[in-house]
């Protein structure tokens, strides 16, 4: 198992390299010159030239990438053009808020989405099924920025029980967590429903029923365990992507996380920060996928056997 995890980590490396090349290349194609942006519109020609030299912008792009990569591997992602702080420092400072938000939202999404999907499947073709299926589809379709504003309207303005923005107490995290969880929850609910419906028809569930064991055991031991396998995979993949939602959530609720940092950096053309921020997101997606694969092996002994 350990060897398998190591192997999976090794597979992450080329992907991250690819992302860094892509981002690096795309940013160098950008119209604005970093040196000009840094010094502002009133700067002298020579000053800009000097800074270009200092930043290595006059060297061939491949060399520039080489230097970037070498530094990045040592944890140095350059300095922010706006604040002149090291990018790594800025990212690390913002990381806890984002990871807290992401983690609490996936927990919430699972806690609500899975039971919702189970109800829909077990009460197939009843009002409950229709209701939870509709909830799931609606959750999938509602724009998260709108959901954020509406929840804020409801719980911070109409019935003021939760703060509308900021970061610090658990109360501040409630609304952002819900907003970030909605879509993943919807995907989990839909996936769970179809997965459970599929499993219920399996021969081994019939075998379990034929043994005369309690319905609860049939459900939790035989159905849920198997239904979870595809749900975990899809939920994980989808969660990696819904992580992108933190840019919205953090912007709406003024949370000092990486998402907001990234949006601000893009607006002010602070490319080193953009670069670093995107790499962090790619890393997060990679880690989530890794965790999913390990969980998958844990849930399914057939997969586990392959990696022993």
């Amino acid at each position, binding site marked *: 198992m350990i060897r398998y995890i190591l192997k999976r980590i090794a597979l992450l490396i080329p992907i991250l390299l690819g992302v860094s090349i892509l981002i690096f290349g795309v940013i160098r194609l950008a119209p604005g010159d970093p040196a000009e942006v840094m010094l502002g519109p009133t700067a002298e020609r020579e000053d800009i030239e000097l800074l270009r030299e200092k930043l290595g912008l006059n060297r061939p792009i491949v060399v520039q990438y080489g230097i970037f990569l070498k530094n990045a591997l040592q944890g140095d992602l350059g300095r922010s053009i706006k604040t002149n702080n090291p990018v790594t420092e800025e990212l690390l400072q913002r990381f806890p808020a984002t990871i807290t938000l992401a983690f609490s939202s996936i927990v919430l999404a699972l806690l609500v989405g899975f039971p919702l999907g189970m109800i829909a499947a077990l009460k197939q073709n009843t009002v409950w099924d229709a209701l939870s299926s509709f909830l799931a589809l609606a959750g999938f379709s509602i724009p998260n920025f709108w959901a954020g504003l509406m929840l804020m309207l409801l719980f911070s303005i109409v019935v003021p029980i939760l703060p509308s923005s900021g970061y610090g107490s658990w109360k501040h995290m409630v609304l952002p967590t819900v907003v970030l969880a909605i879509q993943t929850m919807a995907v989990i609910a839909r996936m769970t429903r179809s997965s459970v419906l599929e499993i219920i028809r399996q021969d081994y569930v019939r075998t379990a029923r034929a*043994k005369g064991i309690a319905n609860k055991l049939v459900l939790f031991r035989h159905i849920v365990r*198997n239904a979870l396998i595809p749900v975990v995979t899809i939920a994980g993949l989808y969660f990696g992507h819904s992580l992108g939602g933190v840019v919205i959530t953090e912007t709406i609720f003024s949370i000092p996380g990486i998402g907001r940092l990234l949006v601000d950096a893009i607006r002010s053309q602070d490319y080193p920060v953009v670069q670093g921020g995107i790499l962090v997101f790619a890393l997060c997606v990679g880690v989530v996928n890794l965790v999913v694969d390990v969980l998958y092996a844990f849930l399914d002994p057939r997969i586990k*056997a392959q990696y022993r």
Partner: protein
Amino acid sequence: MNTPLLQVRNLSVVYRTFEGVLRAVNGIDLDLEAGRTLGLVGESGAGKTTTALSVMRLVPTPPGEIVSGSATFEGRDLMTLPEREMMRIRGNRISMIFQDPMTSLNPVLPVGLQISEALEAHQKLGKAEAARKAGQMLEKVQIPAQRLQEYPHEFSGGMRQRVVIAMALACNPRLIIADEPTTALDVTIQIQVLELMKELRNEFGTSMIMITHDLGVVGEVCDRVAVMYAGEIVEDGDIAQIFDQPMHPYTVGLFKCIPNIEEPASTIHPIRGMMPDPLVPMPGCCFEPRCPEATARCATERPGGALVDGRRIRCHLYADGKRAFAHGRETVSHA
């Protein structure tokens, strides 16, 4: 020897599908005495599995529904028993062995647990005790008890079916319904599994319903045989009688289908045509469209069951006793 263990009367099951109402089982009767083995034969789609599932009250609902009939087991009608009572019978008094060992075991649970959970439920054994008993059951089907902790994918097809057999026998049931237990296996493995089942049946004194489409298997293990066609039991009697002289034209056809090494291949006579569409109700005899001896009456009137020599036959040829005399046989009585 003559106490009836299971008596099925007028059992009908339908599946309500998008295309219409599918009559899978059409008013069948079955009788099984304690300690004996009944073969249920018929081609694919005849309704054998559905019959077995309805005795277990496990017909998937929806789309399936048991629309009429009774199944008296040990003096109680299973069809009207409350679900709680039924659960105490399943896996305890009646067990079922399913067709495909590759899919009938849960892939994510160790086989030991799958055997012991029935013991925990019915014999109120603790975990350790149930596991010990599960190990004994594995040994009975010639699998070392150390393999309790292994998962189904670590066993071959034949071994998995033996695990399923161990599971079915765990609570020492009165009746085992085996639904084509060997069809999915290699020929050599088939014989092993069949032998094992025979041995264990004799050792435990269990009654059995053996579902198969292989007349060879029937001859091997059964005392009685019921021939099923398009949801009906067309002929039902003692194995020696039916093997000696099949009477219903469908049974006659079935025996002609068996390849015989001593005869040239050209003497195999497959029954021509196909089973009728179960979505379309038939006014007459279900075998009429394929029957070489069909008359005008067969297309319009459903034959009742006639008793000939203690065997039941649903065919107009025997209803008025004509055919029996023509064959020079003894008395015919009406059912």
